[in-house]
């Protein structure tokens, strides 16, 4: 019974805090994914552009952020951001250390990482748009923005859903690393609960189970989105 009390919602239970941590994990992952979508779109268009310099820059971005451990990127952004803020504070006459908010640092770090993966997802999705449709759009006089909005964008979004599902799962698990900056997300909350009750096994199992719930629920959401996005496609294409 003591176990149930510990993870329950009573005055001595950690249930509410753990759920709050799970919510924080979802929030920080969602913000990170949005940041990553911006970075990803920019990098993908750089890589797809014919310009050699832009292409190289895009390749450097994806190589670096997929090749360096996530933990190091989080450290670099958290401490780098903090020292930047501290030096800005100094120029305004504030003495002492100013920390970067851990939510912002974490979301930015995970976002930059997911941007590298999203760039590849977007690039692949763009390449999957049939050349014939682009030609047809040009043939009836669509140009630039209109062609992008009506022909490219809807299809890229549809082709990108499975890849985005993978990136979301990756980011959800990467977000556990933000706990090193002290953000009270699911990992950090489980750690604090485990440490203060000395019930390490229990709280890490409960925390892990909550992550499993999050990942399997989001799997369903992405499957649903995929079905919905493909609802007009013939089922013979294996996308029923």
């Amino acid at each position, binding site marked *: 019974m003591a176990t149930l009390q510990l993870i329950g919602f009573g005055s001595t239970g950690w249930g509410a805090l753990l759920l709050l941590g799970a919510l924080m994990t979802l929030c920080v992952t969602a913000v990170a994914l949005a940041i990553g979508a911006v970075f990803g779109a920019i990098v993908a268009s750089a890589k797809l552009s014919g310009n050699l310099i832009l292409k190289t820059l895009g390749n450097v971005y994806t190589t670096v952020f997929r*090749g360096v*451990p996530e933990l190091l*990127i989080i450290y670099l952004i958290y401490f*780098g951001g903090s020292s930047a803020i501290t030096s800005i504070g100094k120029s305004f006459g504030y003495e002492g250390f100013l920390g970067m908010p851990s939510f912002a640092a974490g979301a930015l770090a995970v976002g930059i990482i997911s941007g590298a993966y999203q760039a590849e997802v977007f690039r692949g999705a763009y390449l999957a748009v049939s050349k014939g449709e682009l030609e047809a759009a040009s043939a009836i006089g669509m140009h630039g923005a209109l062609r992008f909005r009506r022909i490219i964008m809807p299809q890229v979004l549809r082709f990108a859903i499975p890849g985005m599902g993978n990136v979301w799962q990756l980011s959800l698990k990467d977000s556990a690393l933000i706990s090193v900056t002290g953000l009270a997300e699911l990992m950090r909350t489980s750690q604090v609960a485990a440490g203060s009750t000395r019930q*390490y096994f229990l709280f*890490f199992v409960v925390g*892990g*189970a909550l992550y*499993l719930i999050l*990942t399997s629920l989001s799997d369903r959401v992405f499957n649903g989105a995929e079905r919905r996005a493909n609802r007009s496609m013939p089922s013979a294409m294996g996308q029923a």
Partner: protein
Amino acid sequence: MDFAFLAQTMLTLLEALPTTLALFFLSIAIGGVLAILIVWMRVGGNPVFTAIAKGYIFVFRGSPLLIQMFLIFYGLAQFGFIRYGPLWPLLREPFVCAVLSLALCTAGYTAEIFRGGIRAVSPREIEAARSVGMSGFLLMRRVLAPIAFRHALPAYSTEIVLMMKSTALASLVTVWEVTGVAQRLISHTYRTMEVFLCAAAIYLILNFIILQALGLLEYHLSRHRRAVPAALKA
């Protein structure tokens, strides 16, 4: 730029490289063997084994590696039968815990990659092998495994690079690999950015080497797919 400091940092970090590489190779090797066992259970046809394998893959792919590592490092010590059991001298070592959790985690991902490779083997190739009298282990060794491995190699390369990056997490359970030593250096020197950037460079170079090596292996294994030089034709 303080090049003397950067060089000194690089040298100190490189001293931790053997630990990082040991974590990496041990967990890849153990994880690979475990993955083969899981795939065997997953595709074997026995419903109980299949369910166990599916559950394993779900749990280890669905939760963050960090929580698995903490569960093993902090959680196992809570049980008397482990604490006073025969394996305790091993399990109380942070390095062993790190390797164990890295291997258990990668086994889940690797099993799915290998399963994809096996599914890509054409049934006709298996039929052909059977028709010349191959079966069981010989069939697996000569036909199934090589073709499946070749199909799985690109995805497996990605997993191997992910593993190299994951070894950085071992620093959080007090293993002094590259990231851990970088943190220790920072606590002495307070030069965060320089030290972390040096560490990042080491990982980038390692991953570059790994990808090159795997690319070579892939090239080597796909000899049959490359065009035959004109001089050799007919």
